[in-house]
């Protein structure tokens, strides 16, 4: 009897030790059901909904600690060796050293100052990929209680007030705030995030007509076909992402990975 109790106690203790001390430990990605979305960037002017297939997405953005381990395993992504083709001079500049976070950076803050190429390489190494814009937008449409909160003025207001406050302050840690209805944290209110097709966003959906240099530059003016114009909160994301290059890094731009179902 004592032996059985002892075994149970041991098992409980082991479970306690293994269990994460907080929400920081990487949880399994959230499964996102297939659905459709009235995107701010529709595929064509006539198509009012974009279909989203089932996929999985990380519950939190990638952290400093996780990215440090990646840079350690993959020296070509250290800031002192990365090719300028794939990252600008500010790449990981907020860390104390190539493989040292330093006192100013916390392990569970989201990693920022990472380029699209680096973010993509990280997700590939994890057996995943970056989410597409439409996938990201679909997951980001949820609030704590429903999967599409976009017509809720409170939701919009909350996001917009975050935009107005960023800059200067230290980034909060990931996963601290309540998850949305998909169980995903920090889609808003923490950082900007790379998407796989960031360089597809400023391209208008219908623009084969020619006329004027501006039209030729992008085969048409993208702003003309942005839909859901009342959704400034999300449109600001597309404006930011369409203005950067793959090698660019910024203080507020990080990422999270997505995974194909059955692709692991």
């Amino acid at each position: 009897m004592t032996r059985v109790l002892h075994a149970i106690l041991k098992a409980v203790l082991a479970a306690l030790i293994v269990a994460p001390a907080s929400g920081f430990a990487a949880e399994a990605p959230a499964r996102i059901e297939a659905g459709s979305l009235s995107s701010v960037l529709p595929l064509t002017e006539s198509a009012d909904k974009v279909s989203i297939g089932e996929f999985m997405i990380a519950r939190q953005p990638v952290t400093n600690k996780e990215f440090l381990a990646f840079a350690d395993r993959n020296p070509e992504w250290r800031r002192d060796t990365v090719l300028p083709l794939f990252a600008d001079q500010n790449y990981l500049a907020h860390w104390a050293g190539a493989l040292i976070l330093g006192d100013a950076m916390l392990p569970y803050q989201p990693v920022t100052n990472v380029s699209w190429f680096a973010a993509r390489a990280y997700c590939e190494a994890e057996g995943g990929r970056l989410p597409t814009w439409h996938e990201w937008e679909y997951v980001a449409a949820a609030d704590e209680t429903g999967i599409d909160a976009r017509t809720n003025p409170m939701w919009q207001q909350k996001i917009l007030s975050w935009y107005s406050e960023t800059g200067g302050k230290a980034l909060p840690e990931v996963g601290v705030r309540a998850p949305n209805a998909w169980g995903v944290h920090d889609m808003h209110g923490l950082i900007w995030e790379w998407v796989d097709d960031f360089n597809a966003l400023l391209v208008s959906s219908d623009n084969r007509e020619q006329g004027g240099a501006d039209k030729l530059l992008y085969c048409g003016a993208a702003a003309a076909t942005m839909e859901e114009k009342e959704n400034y909160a999300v449109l600001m994301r597309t404006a930011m992402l369409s203005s950067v290059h793959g090698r660019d890094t910024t203080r507020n731009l990080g990422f999270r990975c997505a995974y194909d179902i059955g692709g692991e």
Partner: protein
Amino acid sequence: MNRWHEICFVAIVSAMLVLVGAAQEESSAQLPRESYYQLDVSLETHRGAALQLSDLQGTPVVLAMFYASCPHVCPMTISAIRAIEAQLPPEDREELRVLLVTFDPERDTPAVLAELADRHGENNDRWQFARTAPEEVRVVAAVLGIQYRESPDGEFNHSSPILLLDATGRELSRSHKPGAPDAVFAQEVAAAAHAKSLLLSH
């Protein structure tokens, strides 16, 4: 030629060959860090040949992205490059290479690309119409700073810069005017090609 001269001759030629070989090896190992040729991507040309970006080093290259079924902008891009080339003296034109990479590798097979090359009268050794693996297109576009997206009808909407790279794959210039004459860009292409042909004739 006596025996001694013969030995000297062979020794000198051998030494030269070794030096040339070393120089070539060095040039591929020492691409500038900002060279586009640092991107490790495999291409397949309109002649069905395998091509690495770094194979293009040694001469200036004019580079753009396109797709074969593109109705308006891409033919203009190709015409613009041909117009720039047409202004060059033949010996300078010989030193220029042109690489066109498709947004649409699924449909733009080597046969389709060869047909396009014929249609433009550029089925030759200097022009390469090429495709990558489908998953590489976005990476190539991102490296070159080109935006594109595929629409449901199979068209591609894209930005249309034409780039000029130096002999080591660094960007010298880019034109954002595929539909209009870009005199500055044309001059830069002419200068790069001429410099290369001068280098060879001296």
